[in-house]
């Protein structure tokens, strides 16, 4: 590779950042990280904090693994990846508990569950182990942002239709309720998150013909 003179934001590097937001989105295209996308998206606020936490964990883990890539024995690479991710997650959790106690209470177990987020390990294994730190950092940022974006989108619809609020503020006017409008209780339950993700996938594929298989 002749990357000596490659600018920091070369088209190739920028692609690492932008593709996961669109046509290689970890949730809608690779269908990774679905588990947490279903669990935390009832309300917008925890989704946003979780998205940010994943961005931090993923970017730093990607860089750490990329720096270690020549030293990590392939036979124990999965264990090493897990240790790096787990360390980062515990750090994020501890910092949230100390400096953003209210938010950490809301997220409760979900911060810990970042460890099991398939996207992070997928990116470490597929990208960071074979690339230099800077591209790995961008790749981590891009994929976490792609994940977070879908998370926030799903949470937006679920909170709006499930609770009639956004960020816990009432957005559906009281008059609607008086006219007989009822919040959709189904939206609060995990299966509807799957349906919302499904609709997003459908819309995305309908708009981008490249993504249609067969």
């Amino acid at each position, binding site marked *: 590779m002749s990357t000596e003179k490659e600018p920091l934001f070369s088209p190739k590097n920028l692609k690492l950042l932008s593709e996961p937001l669109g046509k290689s989105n970890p949730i809608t295209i690779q269908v990774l990280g679905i588990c947490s996308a279903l669990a935390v998206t009832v*309300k917008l606020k925890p989704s946003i904090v979780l998205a940010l936490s994943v961005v931090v964990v993923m970017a730093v883990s990607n860089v750490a693994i990329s720096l270690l890539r020549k030293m990590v024995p392939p*036979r124990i690479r999965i264990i*090493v990846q897990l240790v790096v991710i787990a*360390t980062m997650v*515990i750090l994020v959790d*501890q910092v949230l*508990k100390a400096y953003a106690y209210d938010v950490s209470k809301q997220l409760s177990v979900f911060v810990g569950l970042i460890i099991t987020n398939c996207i992070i390990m997928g990116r470490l294994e597929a990208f960071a182990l074979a690339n230099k730190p800077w591209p790995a950092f961008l790749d981590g940022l891009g994929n976490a942002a792609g994940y977070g974006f879908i998370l926030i989108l799903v949470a937006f619809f679920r909170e709006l239709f*499930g609770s009639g609020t956004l960020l816990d503020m009432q957005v559906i006017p009281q008059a609607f309720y008086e006219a007989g409008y009822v919040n959709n209780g189904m939206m609060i339950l995990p299966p509807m998150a799957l349906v919302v993700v499904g609709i997003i996938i459908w819309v995305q594929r309908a708009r981008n013909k490249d993504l249609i298989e067969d």
Partner: protein
Amino acid sequence: MRSFSNTYIFVFSLIMVTIVAVLLSFVATQLKPLQEMNVQIEKKQDVLRSVGKAEDAAEAEDKNTYINEEFAKYITESYVVDFDGNLMEQEDAFEVMLGLTAEIRLPREERNYPVFIYSENGGPKKYVIPVRGKGLWGPIWGYVALEEDLNTISGAVFDHKGETPGLGSDINQDWFQEPFAGKTIFNEAGEFVGVEVVKGGADPSSMHQVDAIAGGTITSKALEEMIIDCMTGYVAHFKELANN
């Protein structure tokens, strides 16, 4: 790909876990005082909320100082009693409250029962009773404030660790907590009955019923159970106070 000897793998793992262990324990010890402080502040704030104080905590410039000051100002007295109503002089009410979650596993007769007394400018007293219990997915807890008659609830706050969002988790919402105010925990015969959380709507004329959460029945029932479980132990003490 290069191959690595077993010795290398062994040494690599050893160094890796050592670095991680040192890093994590360092961070944990550094942040521990802050985290413990957060927990204490939260409990003080909950006690104050049950008597309708500390509403401005969100706007306060320095939340911790604000809560500490309010707590010192309004909670004029605190003590611990046992199941038979005897004063436990060597126990500190706040310390007991911090460990209350572990205490509810003991039989009722062996537990300690902390009481916090609120009073504003020497006005009427309110008795704040911390309650702890098990919800559907994890712990639930709350603070019930009683009027001076030790029967009428003046306010109650509840919270939870991980109840179903939008369903059981609503026990920490005002619409669920407000109806508790004005209910009584003893019936006409003077027997302790607690507050019943009724599925399908409480009888508006009842002094002992509030609405359950639709779709959160297990959490609602757990909360009812928690109030009975934790407040039964105070009955002896309340009777004694009422007789004096």
